């Protein structure tokens, strides 16, 4: 970072990477709703619907805050993802991916959840707290297979640097072909990570009064909406970087991430909801088993 050039480049990346992530995330949200609609034989929302939603939520009259931590919770939930996407390389922009690597990124992804948990906690509504207790349990469920997958991948590439992994894949072969089992387990964990059906009990979007969102109004809800779009983006880019060789150019990159995110979105409407403990059970059984076998192959 010695030269002025690289500093200005980094500053540009700091600005563009989150913005890009946000915009792509919005498109993914739209895609999610469209898929849902098509599966249910509906037309679905118009293209700008996610933007309308955010604007609507932000400009609501009723904006109830239960205190500073409630606000900060939303700030952390969004800000954590903003920071995380800077650790995720996209074509032409590496951000600071070389400073952290995959382990750091995995832990970064827990920060937004913790922020949201703190925010919900201050709402003084037991329904919210119950939701958080479920959310953290769910995190325990999907993070164990996820972390095994991360371990296997890092062991395979002998590196924790995402940039290094992408370079390796582009030079050799995609990770999914070298580690199919780990890739499958990763996809499974991804489903849980995104908090969508069938593992969406902790968000409980359908019963808003009895989930973590119970006291979220106006821009608090809007913040979470923004967070959701980041969530889609991060999950898909991370998976692409680990298994699909990242993107050599933007076209390839976009194709891959939308393809990746499309899979869990399609699955999500095919199954009914799992209870929390059932989710833990299934997550600790199948993906963990797959991932461990995958690691055995890697070693």
């Amino acid at each position, binding site marked *: 970072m010695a030269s002025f050039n690289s500093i200005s480049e980094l500053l540009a990346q700091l600005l563009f990477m989150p913005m890009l992530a946000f915009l792509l995330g919005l498109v993914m949200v739209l895609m999610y709703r469209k898929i849902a609609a098509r599966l249910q034989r509906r037309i679905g929302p118009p293209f700008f619907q996610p933007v309308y939603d955010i604007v609507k939520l932000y400009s609501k009259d009723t904006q109830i805050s239960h205190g500073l931590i409630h*606000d900060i919770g939303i700030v952390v939930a969004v*800000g954590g993802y903003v920071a995380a996407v800077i650790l995720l390389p996209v074509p032409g922009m590496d951000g600071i991916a070389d*400073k952290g690597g995959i382990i750091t990124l995995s832990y970064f992804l827990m920060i937004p959840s*913790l922020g949201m948990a*703190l925010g919900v906690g*201050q709402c*003084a509504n037991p329904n919210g707290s119950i939701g958080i207790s479920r959310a953290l349990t769910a995190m325990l469920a999907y993070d164990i297979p996820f*972390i095994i997958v991360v371990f296997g991948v890092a062991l395979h590439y002998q*590196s924790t640097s995402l940039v290094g992994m992408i370079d390796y894949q582009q030079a050799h072969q995609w990770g999914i072909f070298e580690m199919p089992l780990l890739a499958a387990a990763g996809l499974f964990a991804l489903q849980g990570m995104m908090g969508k059906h069938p593992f969406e009990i902790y968000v409980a979007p359908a019963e808003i009064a009895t989930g973590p969102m*119970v006291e979220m109004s106006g821009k608090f809800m809007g913040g979470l909406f923004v967070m959701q779009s980041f969530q889609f983006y991060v999950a898909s880019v991370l998976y692409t970087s680990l298994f699909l060789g990242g993107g050599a150019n933007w076209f390839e990159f976009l194709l891959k991430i939308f393809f990746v995110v499309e899979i869990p979105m399609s699955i999500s409407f095919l199954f009914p909801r799992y209870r929390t403990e059932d989710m833990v059970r299934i997550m600790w059984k199948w993906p963990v088993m797959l991932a461990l076998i995958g690691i055995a192959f890697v070693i």
Partner: protein
Amino acid sequence: MSVLDEVFILCALGALVLFVFHRIRGIEKLAVVFYAALLYLLIKMSGLGYGGEVIYSSFSLNILGETLQWRFDAVSWFFAIITVASGLFSAVFMSGKWGESYREKTSNAAYGTLQIALLLNVNSMLILLASGDLLSLFIGWELVSWASFMMMALNPDKQARQAAIKYIVYAMAGAMAFLAAMAYVYGITGSLQYAELAQASAALSNGQIILLSLLFFTGFAIKMGLIPFHLWQAVAYAETPAPGAVFLGAISARMGLYAIIVVLIQLIGLGHLQQIHIPFTFWNLQTVLAWVGALTTIIPTYIALKQNDARHLLAWHGVGQGGYMLLGLMTLNSLGSAGGLLHVFNYATYQAALFMTIGAVIYRTGTANFDKLGGLVTQMPLTFMVMVFSIIGLAGLPPMNGFVSKWMVYRSLLLDGEPLLFVAAVIGTLGTILSVYKLVHNTFLGQLRVEHQNVREAPLSLLIPMLVLAAIMFVTGMMPGLVLDWVASAQLAMGLVPVTYNLGGIVLASGGLDMIWITLILFYGLGVGAIIFYLLGGRAKRVHQYDNYAGGHFLTSRVRYHYSHNFYAGLMHLIGGWYRGSFKKLEQAIVSLVSLLSQLSENMYRSAQPAMMVIIVVVLSLWSISGGIN
């Protein structure tokens, strides 16, 4: 006279003065000065932390043909600076309002005794850390045990007293294992000097090494509360008066780690442990120890998850965190062992801060029971902030220092290619995240109780050490290189390859860590998040906590609207059955066995026919002498 002599003289002087004047008011200020002076002397020795020469005490003792000597090397200094700093923070914590209230509740003498206990703990640990041979190590070891016992016995509660008794039995068992190991060393080498053992260990047979390592390790593991000796520690530490818990929680159990470093790594040698294969398995001795560490990260952490008292929850985590340190040390590579050592420092900072926040909560509300707390964030925001900082450290999330050391442990497991150990460590971390959220939620978040409406922020004398610790956590998290200097020197002294690092973190070709960047980016992200939240959209309106969704009901102060009991009901539904208390049952079985044997012996002593017994014994003896045994 070396600086180490000055340290010992200061210790002796401090103990004497405190012992004589412990009933006098204002002694607490003197104690703070004492710890500060001690810290100053340690800083005078800080050359040790940057690769300096070993400092010897000019005092030595000749007994039983052994020379007892005391010295400080980089490892001792590293542990000593944490010890004395923890002592200083505890002393500051108890020097103000907390001390006054403790005096009112008990008496001047009781408060003085608490001060004495703290001082004895610090002093005995320094003696232990300075030990230069096995015998002085054992003496220091015993002194530490008794000093901790004194501290634990200060709480008059029944539970605390039982815990103290349990502790002393465990500690004694550990000391006896240590003593046996020492005796075997003497039997083999004819000496108790470190150098002799280091020399002799190269020539020992595998069986001897296993026996020695097992005995030594048992002794040290009990102090550290490693599996399967983890039962005593949490209750004993938790029930100690707050400043005692701060100190014991932060550093006391790490004396076990220090002894493991000295004996198992420096003297017997990790390479040696690695060569010894356990029969009928793929494992060697080092793997076994690493697994002890891994299991220690998991089991106590999940016991912590079930606790319903903040102090107990924290103390159980203290036991669990010890597992990371051992795991790191047992990875054998420079990164992992550095991570294990760094974790000692990091853990001390956040564990001390956490016990202080709970101490402050108890000071204000009188309880640490999760069922009787909640919503205190509006009343004690700074304490809450310190707790959030510390739990981020404890859970090992960026940007606090706990993340750095855990990262190093994970990274080294990756380098070694140890998937199962890695997963075990991660399971431990995830459990920690769950349980620290429970901690912060059930004390500071949720609904504020009516009786706590008038609770105020903790007084300044409690806040200052907490805030300073939080600052240390943050700064050393952002710039771990500050502490890694010391760690690298300690590694050199241990005979390991020091880790390569810079101010911001670890330098590694295949993916390093730079915390300065990561912290900056995180704050950048939070800044963006704040802009999105605060600058855009309408103004949020603050509402009262009773102005809340309750399915159509109106909330009043009479309705308790709070979720804290059985916090992870769903998870417990699944894993609840795994808490079988097997170790507890094992412990009870041993007690029952002793009880049975004791009863049998008593029956013997009560026998109505003593003369018959004499004759039987004579016959038996004659039989045995005449070759019956052989």
